[in-house]
């Protein structure tokens, strides 16, 4: 989006459901519970929803399935599938649809029961034809090769990767909603089972159930909702490839473009940001995105995260709910970056609530570092 949409739409409700294990529930059950929680949080009801933004791994038409399940007939539907970044991407399309009156109440919603249904990451996509014969393990082989390249080019170490997981766990230990809250040290991460060199199982996100939902309305209506509005100040997307073998530079992502555009639309710079929520499918993601979004120079991400600098009490709060590494990862985590950012800005974060959070960045990643979507959110003070 461009600066013209800055502050025109706001998040007025968030909801989640089925974190960890949602035994006995279908993915659509989890989706509906999250959606109900979000509309209630906004002081609205499902009957008010006339814009639906949804994708899931269950079906080729999940947005229509979700509308049918919820008993609504939205006049605007966006089911664009860019993987785990989809829900950050919907912030842009929801803001656009709201601004021109294509809908008045936008519900962004997602649910998954992958853990209790299958015990592993669920994907609806086929292995790419020119990659499948080599039997890569998706998505980890792709991220492992990015990590290996980053280590080769910049001297990033396994210890620095491990510190990303350790920081995420330290935040999660404050968050009663987080799935993994036990102690985790750098040594634990390094000694864990190697899955795809150089990544151990503790460098990888969780496999959980869970759903999330967000309600957005135009700014004028947002002021009448019960919770403080969280304004969308800027957002932008960039995609560089679909298959990992087509990624031009394995140590630089399209977050460089999505971030620059989102910052320009919001009229702020990385140094202004109080809080960062990144899609941490693997520990390398956090390092790549901190660099590409401009929080540190290219190649310095390893040093930037080292020794608790992004953990509680560090220099920059990153993934304050515990992230996909320790809080929740139902397959497409992106929506939870927005939910945690919004709750921190509103002051009702489930874990460690930080003080004076006015500007937050939420960043979604989709595919195998393929789709990058950045959103900048702000409190009323930032308008």
């Amino acid at each position, binding site marked *: 989006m461009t600066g013209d949409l800055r502050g025109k739409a706001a998040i007025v409700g968030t909801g989640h459901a089925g974190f960890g294990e949602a035994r006995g529930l279908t993915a659509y059950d989890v989706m509906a519970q999250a959606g109900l929680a979000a509309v209630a949080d906004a002081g609205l009801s499902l009957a008010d929803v006339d814009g639906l933004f949804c994708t899931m791994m269950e079906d080729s038409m999940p947005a229509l399935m979700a509308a049918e399940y919820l008993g609504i007939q939205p006049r605007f539907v966006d089911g664009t599938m860019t993987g785990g970044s989809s829900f950050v991407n919907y912030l842009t399309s929801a803001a656009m649809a709201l601004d021109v009156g294509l809908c008045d109440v936008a519900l962004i919603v997602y649910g998954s029961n992958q853990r209790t249904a299958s015990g592993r990451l669920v994907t609806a996509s086929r292995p790419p*034809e*020119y*990659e499948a*014969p*080599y*039997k*890569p*393990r998706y998505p980890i*082989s792709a991220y*492992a*090769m*990015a990590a*290996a*390249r980053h280590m*080769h080019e910049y001297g990033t170490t396994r210890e620095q990767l491990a510190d990303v997981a350790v920081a995420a766990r330290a935040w999660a230990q404050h968050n009663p909603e987080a799935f993994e809250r036990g102690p985790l040290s750098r040594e634990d991460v390094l000694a864990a*089972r*190697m*899955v*795809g*060199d*150089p990544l151990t199982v503790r460098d990888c996100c969780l496999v959980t159930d869970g759903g999330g939902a967000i309600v957005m309305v135009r700014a004028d209506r947002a002021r009448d909702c019960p919770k403080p509005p969280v304004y969308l100040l800027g957002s932008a997307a960039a995609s560089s490839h679909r298959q*990992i*073998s*087509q990624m031009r530079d*394995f140590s630089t992502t399209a977050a460089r473009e999505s971030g620059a555009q989102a910052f320009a639309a919001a009229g702020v710079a990385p140094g202004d940001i109080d809080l960062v929520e990144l899609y941490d499918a693997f520990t390398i993601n956090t390092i790549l995105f901190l660099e590409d979004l401009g929080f540190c120079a290219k190649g310095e991400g390893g040093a930037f995260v080292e020794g608790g600098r992004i953990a509680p009490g560090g220099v920059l709060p990153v993934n304050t709910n515990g992230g996909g590494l320790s809080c929740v990862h139902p397959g497409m985590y992106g929506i939870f970056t927005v939910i945690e950012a919004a709750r921190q800005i509103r002051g009702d974060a489930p874990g460690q609530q930080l003080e004076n959070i006015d500007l937050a960045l939420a960043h979604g990643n989709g595919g195998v570092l393929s789709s990058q979507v950045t959103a900048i959110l702000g409190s009323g003070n930032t308008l």
Partner: protein
Amino acid sequence: MQEITGSDQTFRRALANGEIALPKCDSCGKFHFFPRVVCPHCHETALSWRRASGRGEVYTTTVVRRRSEQGGDYNICMVELEEGVRMMSRVEGIAPADVTIGMAVTVYVGEIDGQPAVLCRPVEG
């Protein structure tokens, strides 16, 4: 009736004959991979095929860890061919963890599960 041979078929037929054929754009002169009907660099559609030299370098690498009773660990790599294209492959003939970034490799047509596939081996010496 004229039979149309798609870019994917052309590549696979060459592979079945033991050759790595790469599409090259007649307009900008750049190679690309995977095969397609339009040059991803300049978007022209006049394309020709060239046989790959077989010289390449490992761009990045990983080991897929697997229990020994299921066949053990194996390598996955991205190989950069001399022609400037990259593809997924596997370095054979050495331990999967001994594959290093920048390693010079010979790219050849081998077999995976009875099907022809582009594989690599370290350059001798």
